């Protein structure tokens, strides 16, 4: 037993990961390519699927751009300054990690839905949020808020504020201090958070189902398209688009990990 113990443990772990991760992912891959590469391309190359993939990509890009800027600013606020409401801000930033993403979507509908006060007024003004594309971006902003903050915060905390103060003392203005002193050392961390944000946004499902209305060619994102194809009895189409999403995941996730490793800081 004493000699076999480590091997038994290792076997258990490999078994658990195999049936829970390797098997389902393989099943999707096999289904997607079961009828040959031509069938795979054909399953993707229809208007609805391409529109869904494109919508997922550009909404994710916008959400990433916004939350990269705001996330860096939030990290800077949390690390550098002592102000009333700071503990609340720290707690709120972590909240999207805990809240079910479907609930996050519903919360946005509660505020911006057509029956609500704010949403009704905005819809009358010609800017509907819920069941429209802005709602998708808003949902992504909400669920991905913690990523850049969490990536940048520990790295920023390791930096000595004295460097910034010295630059100010030597006559540099705020912009120069930010671009020349503050930004360069945290750049890998910012990039790591941004990649994570984008990866999560492309794969996001629950909040978007609640918010977007899921109208083909307009507000149907790729993961929701996959659900539609499963329910509509087209597993080949669902598998093909899933494989594209899988491609995003296996490229972006290791990239984020690599950048985070380079960024250093305490984890």
């Amino acid at each position: 037993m004493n000699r076999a113990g480590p091997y038994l443990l290792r076997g258990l772990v490999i078994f658990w990961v195999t049936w829970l991760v390797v098997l389902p992912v393989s099943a999707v891959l096999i289904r997607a390519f079961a009828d040959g590469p031509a069938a795979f391309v054909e399953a993707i190359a229809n208007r609805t699927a391409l529109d869904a993939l494109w919508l997922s990509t550009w909404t994710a890009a916008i959400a990433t751009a916004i939350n990269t800027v705001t996330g860096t600013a939030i990290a800077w606020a949390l690390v550098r300054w002592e102000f009333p409401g700071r503990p609340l801000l720290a707690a709120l930033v972590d909240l999207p990690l805990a809240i079910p993403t479907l609930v996050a979507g519903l919360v946005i509908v509660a505020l911006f839905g057509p029956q609500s006060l704010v949403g009704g007024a905005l819809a009358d003004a010609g800017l509907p949020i819920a069941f429209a594309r802005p709602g998708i971006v808003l949902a992504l902003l909400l669920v991905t808020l913690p990523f850049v903050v969490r990536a940048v915060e520990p790295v920023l905390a390791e930096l000595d504020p004295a460097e910034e103060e010295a630059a100010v003392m030597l006559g540099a203005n705020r912009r120069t201090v930010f671009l020349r002193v503050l930004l360069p050392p945290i750049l890998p961390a910012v990039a790591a958070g941004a990649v994570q944000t984008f990866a999560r946004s492309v794969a996001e499902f629950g909040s978007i189902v609640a918010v977007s209305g899921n109208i083909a060619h307009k507000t149907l994102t790729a993961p929701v398209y996959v659900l539609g194809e499963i329910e509509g009895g087209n597993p080949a189409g669902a598998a093909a688009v899933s494989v594209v999403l899988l491609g995003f995941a296996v490229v972006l996730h290791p990239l984020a990990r690599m950048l985070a490793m380079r960024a250093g800081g305490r984890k």
Partner: protein
Amino acid sequence: MRSSSRRVPDRYAAGPLVAVLGYVACLILVPLAALVYVVAAHLSEVVTALLSGPALHAMGLTLAVAALCVVCNGVFGVAGALVLVRQRFLLRRLVDALVELPLALSPVMTGLGFLLLFGRTGPLGPLLDAIGLRVAFAVPGVVVATLFVTLPFTLREVALVLEEIGDSEEQAAATLGASPWQTFWRVTLPNIKNGLVAGTVLTLARALGEFGAVLVVGGAIGNRTETATTFIHAAVESRAEPAAYGMALLLGAAAIAALGALQWTEKKR
């Protein structure tokens, strides 16, 4: 060191700070307040909807599945962390990457994978038929889907702690003649307790809130495989807003409680 380097905002910092607080308030606090307001405005309907049979069944199933995942992935998480941190073997880096995969994949895709595996026409279909076990569109499917999405949490938290403490205490115990089991129960387990607690809370929160994979594999059949989240989804589709908002608030409150518990245990560390 970190707390001492924080300063009271000067006049240049005040503007950006207000902007930061405003952004987070608008993005999280105001929508949450809107949800609370909607529930409060329809309180009696919400209570009736949440006390209905299907709602209670959904809550019960969600809690039971979450508890099962905490136990299964707790055991696996500790074993996996020990193997990945303490052992060196050929496929270690691959297993390490595979464990993280559930965090990166779209849950719908996972659901599809399990359907293809366990469905009637899948490779495991005949086998499951033979032993009379239904997975797809049945409760075991909900369990499998939730096991998948909660796979990494306990393992990651425990692995972090194991890396930090090193293995000198375990080696000392072994040198003094403790068996591997004794070493595990008396030395390793007490040391990783905090990581285990954090992982459990994260697993619980994720299990309560899982939606996509559970919807696809479980099929969200009312009174059978409907979970709290798929109950919300069904309520939205059938325009039963009080039920949807009520359950959403319940799940949101559970999430906030979990996060609070986590921060409390972290402070105690």
